[in-house]
């Protein structure tokens, strides 16, 4: 078994583009991925496509074949839906298809149109990733759910709103050179602490923005990459996925994310590495507390210790383990169905040296991408490696 190669990727500008349709967003990302890879569209044997709220945002279901058509691909196309981990789940299927020998070339991607339905509409659409009967009808929103987790974390391990503010400050600073980022604006800890409350203890700067955008990548077998002399030095060496009870109330912990623990263990085992081999990470920071929970589930920090990682500088671009060099969901933006592939693209570009923040980790050979859905009832983790 050989590792699938990332042959090329494309990511649209992330931001507020209410008039851009999902199909237009995905066409841009998909064609860019094809062009960057040098792979002809005719060689693509399948499209694995992530999307979460297409029915609610633009009254469009059955997006798989639509998106294949938009990128000029005549191949089976299937939409994956795992809330905000939709694209991560799509990547996992792409990896499995290549590894099994079923396919030599696939496109993986995702798109989300969100701002056209406004903040209240998008908050409502996002909330359906939670349990409709037992959570949404009790007033739970997504920020509300992560606020419940943050409060529980503070109670169990300590930490403060100020610690979380440092996560936001870090990710905003990382995004300053990412021209595709939605928020290219430096913020201070005071700005974050003084921002209006969304769901206490989380404020506006603890939350990622509502984003329109798309991402795509071409993944090939090693044999195809060699035969066609592709410039594809980065391989996907590990994949993992974990699940949990859908409703937060049904879990043993509100301050831990066991689905991500499972996904990380499986991905590390699959790649034959330990957490200590990881040089750089893109994690699902839909809220600042989510970055903290992710880093602990990835075993990059002990339980209760990731809360101060941004504040003490460990996870900044100057630190030992830079996290979310892209700006993360927090500053880069979070078009939910595209996010997993945007993370994959970031790690691939950091490892091959072409990302504007690659200079933070010039010798990096191992990166991980952590993509979480709902209150982390679905998580995928992928390990990417370069060299050898």
């Amino acid at each position, binding site marked *: 078994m050989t590792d699938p190669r990332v042959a090329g990727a494309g990511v649209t500008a992330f931001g507020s583009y209410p008039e851009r349709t999902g199909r237009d967003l995905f066409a841009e990302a998909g064609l860019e991925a094809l062009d960057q890879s040098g792979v002809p569209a005719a060689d693509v044997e399948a499209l694995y496509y992530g999307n979460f709220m297409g029915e609610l945002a633009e009254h469009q279901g059955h997006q798989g074949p639509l998106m294949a058509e938009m990128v000029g691909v005549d191949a089976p196309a299937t939409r994956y839906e795992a809330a905000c981990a939709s694209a991560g789940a799509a990547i996992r299927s792409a990896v499995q298809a290549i590894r099994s020998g079923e396919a030599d070339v696939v496109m993986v991607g995702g798109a989300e149109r969100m701002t056209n339905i406004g903040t209240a509409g998008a908050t409502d659409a996002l909330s359906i990733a939670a349990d409709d009967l037992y959570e949404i009808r009790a007033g739970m929103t997504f920020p509300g759910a992560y606020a419940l987790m943050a409060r529980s974390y503070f109670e169990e391990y300590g930490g403060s709103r100020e610690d979380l503010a440092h996560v936001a400050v870090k990710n905003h600073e990382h995004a300053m050179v990412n021209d595709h980022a939605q928020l290219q604006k430096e913020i201070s800890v005071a700005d974050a602490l003084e921002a209006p409350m969304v769901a206490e203890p*989380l404020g506006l700067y603890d939350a990622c923005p509502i984003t329109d955008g798309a991402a795509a990548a071409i993944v090939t077998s090693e044999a195809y990459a060699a035969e066609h002399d592709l410039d594809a030095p980065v391989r996907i060496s590990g994949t993992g996925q974990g699940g949990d009870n859908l409703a*937060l109330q049904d879990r043993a912990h509100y301050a831990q994310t066991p689905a991500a623990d499972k996904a990380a263990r499986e991905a590390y085992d699959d790649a034959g590495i330990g957490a200590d081999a990881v040089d750089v990470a893109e994690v699902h920071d839909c809220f600042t507390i989510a970055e903290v929970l992710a880093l602990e589930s990835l075993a990059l920090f002990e339980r209760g210790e990731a809360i101060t990682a941004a504040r003490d500088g460990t996870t900044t671009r100057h630190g030992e383990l830079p996290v979310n060099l892209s700006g993360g969901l927090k500053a880069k933006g979070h078009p939910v169905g595209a996010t997993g592939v945007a993370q994959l693209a970031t790690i691939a570009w950091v490892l091959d040296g072409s990302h504007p923040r690659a200079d933070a980790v010039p010798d990096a050979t191992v990166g991980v991408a952590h993509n979480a859905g709902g209150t982390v009832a679905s998580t995928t983790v992928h390990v990417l490696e370069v060299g050898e």
Partner: protein
Amino acid sequence: MTDRARDGAFDDWLDALATGDPYYLDCENGHGWLPPRRVCPDCGSRELSRETLPDAGTIATHTTVHVATPQFEDDAPYVTAIADFGPVSITGLVRGVEPDAVEIGTTVGIEIGERETTGERAVVFRRRYSSH
């Protein structure tokens, strides 16, 4: 808009809450759940029995929601909490207490209330004071 069909065992559970007979489902290994369930997701047991919900619960975590969905627009700001009732935990709206006074560990009772925005039924927690 037409009347929405009832959501089976969920609405039955709300009815029981309304009549003051709240219950939960207990598997043979003591794992608690809310209906409908045919199997315990923790241990696979299909022997689920209906048990009386403990009279009081304890707030495990809570948030005051300021940015609401359209269905809760007029309720905001409001407090949503998860409260532990023995083997089962339940999400509900905390009423009758100033948001700043809600704390982890607060003892609450459970009842049926209404969303201010839509009038639909909702699970409500109210603080229980010691009878002493």
